[in-house]
């Protein structure tokens, strides 16, 4: 039994994207409901059809959303564990729920409002993110026993963690800041033409090298922005999808997870074996995803790679097989990820770096637009799109969509 082509993304909905805090006075719940209603409408469905919540990073409380919107009956409600790593994989969760007959119409969703809670921020007072008692509400609470080992390192924000992976990649493979700049600049080029993008000023190599250094080797333009907004995607069976408003975007393959000792990978761990320390953690996921779809990297027309930090785009290009491990830097420097003329256009919407940071969902939206042929920066004849989640703690994820 495989999930290949059994289900399809049939609807996409989104609120406007806002700079951090500017989505007030709406609430996160309100943003979520707006995106869900828009996605159902895009599909030609209504709340009466919705019966499943297949989310990641506990992005919303399905109990709350279902009662507020008046969903008749919830038949499936689950989240992939951990954080943004599950973004693309949540489509696979929907496919699993539908293919196994547990639900018919599932929504995946991210809603984000950072007025009071900053994802890129830090727990300077407590030492590091996650140091205040772990993720389980049933834990003992208090300061966990590993905190005293790491809090004095001052590696307290996501940028610090990813700087460590990046430095190691540079040391092993000769990756340069010019390579990181190409990721930032090529995505900005894409965002300039896209009305939804929050960063649309041209970005030059000089701008990049004159930007303030945050956590060497990562400067301002290597970081994503802080955004508010919500994006939802609706998934149903391939059979039902054929009768809906848009041509189906089939889920050809999807996988989540990663090597066990990738573990939490960042913030508190860093004990990954040498062979994949300087990676995005996505290599085993890519293998299973391609196998399920019966495809390989040569079949992908456009790649929407989770880009909280520019170097992780380079590492994902390697992990998803677009170039050999260690050659991601020269690969991007050769123009391979450019919308125009690139061998594999990447983040044609501008990505998290330049469009908006809604924790992976904007990538799913762009993949669907590309495969419907309605993208702002349309890749001619795009038939297969890759969407990824992470790199972060397990699970990370990847999904292949096809028209």
């Amino acid at each position: 039994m495989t999930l290949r082509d059994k289900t399809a993304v049939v609807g996409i909905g989104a609120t406007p994207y806002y700079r951090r805090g500017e989505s007030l006075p709406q609430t996160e719940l309100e943003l979520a409901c707006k995106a869900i209603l828009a996605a159902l409408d895009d599909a030609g469905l209504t709340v009466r059809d919705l019966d499943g919540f297949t989310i990641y990073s506990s992005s919303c409380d399905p109990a709350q959303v279902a009662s507020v919107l008046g969903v008749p009956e919830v038949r499936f409600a689950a989240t992939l564990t951990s954080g943004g790593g599950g973004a693309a994989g949540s489509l696979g969760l929907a496919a699993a729920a539908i293919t196994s007959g547990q639900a018919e119409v599932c929504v995946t969703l991210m809603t984000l409002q950072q007025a009071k809670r900053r994802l890129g921020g830090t727990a300077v007072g407590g030492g590091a993110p996650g140091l205040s008692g772990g993720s389980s509400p049933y834990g003992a609470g208090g300061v966990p026993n590993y905190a005293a080992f790491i809090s004095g390192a001052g590696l307290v924000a996501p940028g610090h963690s990813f700087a460590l992976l990046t430095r190691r990649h540079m040391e092993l493979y000769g990756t340069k800041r010019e390579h990181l700049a190409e990721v930032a600049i090529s995505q900005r080029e894409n965002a300039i033409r896209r009305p939804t993008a929050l960063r649309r000023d041209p970005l030059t190599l000089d701008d990049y090298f004159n930007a303030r250094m945050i956590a060497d080797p990562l400067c301002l333009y290597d970081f994503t922005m802080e955004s508010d907004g919500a994006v939802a995607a609706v998934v149903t069976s391939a059979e039902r999808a054929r009768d809906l408003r848009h041509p189906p975007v089939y889920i050809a393959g999807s996988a989540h997870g990663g090597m066990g000792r990738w573990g939490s990978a960042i913030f508190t761990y860093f004990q990954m074996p040498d062979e994949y320390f300087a990676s995005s953690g996505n290599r085993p996921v890519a293998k299973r995803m391609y196998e399920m779809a019966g495809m390989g990297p040569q079949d992908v027309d456009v790649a929407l790679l989770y880009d909280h930090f520019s170097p992780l785009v380079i590492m994902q290009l390697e992990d998803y097989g677009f170039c050999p491990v260690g050659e991601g830097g020269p690969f991007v420097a050769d123009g391979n990820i450019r919308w125009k003329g690139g061998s594999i256009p990447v983040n044609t919407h501008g990505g998290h770096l330049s469009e908006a940071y809604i924790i992976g969902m904007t990538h799913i939206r762009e993949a669907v637009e590309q495969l419907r042929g309605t993208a702002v920066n349309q890749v001619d004849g795009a038939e297969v799109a890759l969407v990824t989640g992470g790199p972060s703690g397990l699970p990370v994820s990847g999904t292949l969509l096809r028209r």
Partner: protein
Amino acid sequence: MTELKRGTYPAMLKDPFADAVTQPFWDAALQDKLVAPKCVHCGTFVLTPQPFCFNCQGQGFDWVELPGTGTIYTFTVVRHPLAPALAEVVPYVSGIIELDGTQGAGARMMLNITGCDPAAVRVGDKVEIWFDKVSDTYSMPRARPLAV
């Protein structure tokens, strides 16, 4: 926060919040000794200390004193202060240290590397672990360049 010093990330905790799994590390740290738990079944070192060995799933560790030196596996120079008070601390260097006497991955430490020139630090540099006595119960590990 205590006294702020450029290059030295301030101690945020006053106690190691030890439990049965970690207490021997902190007892030794108060004696300026670096020790690590070594699996009695397969010899793998596990830091931070855990209730199981990730290699053989065994329980039971011997606490072994290490040479107290290591190698910089990767590092970052933090230049942007994430809290106003840290303006006096940046730039500081922090990284992942592979400890001599261990197998490397699985027993690395995340440490602030003090007493170094941020522009001169390189992956592969040798460091020694030192303990910064924060309180009567907590000597916090840091690294510094190993004099050669």
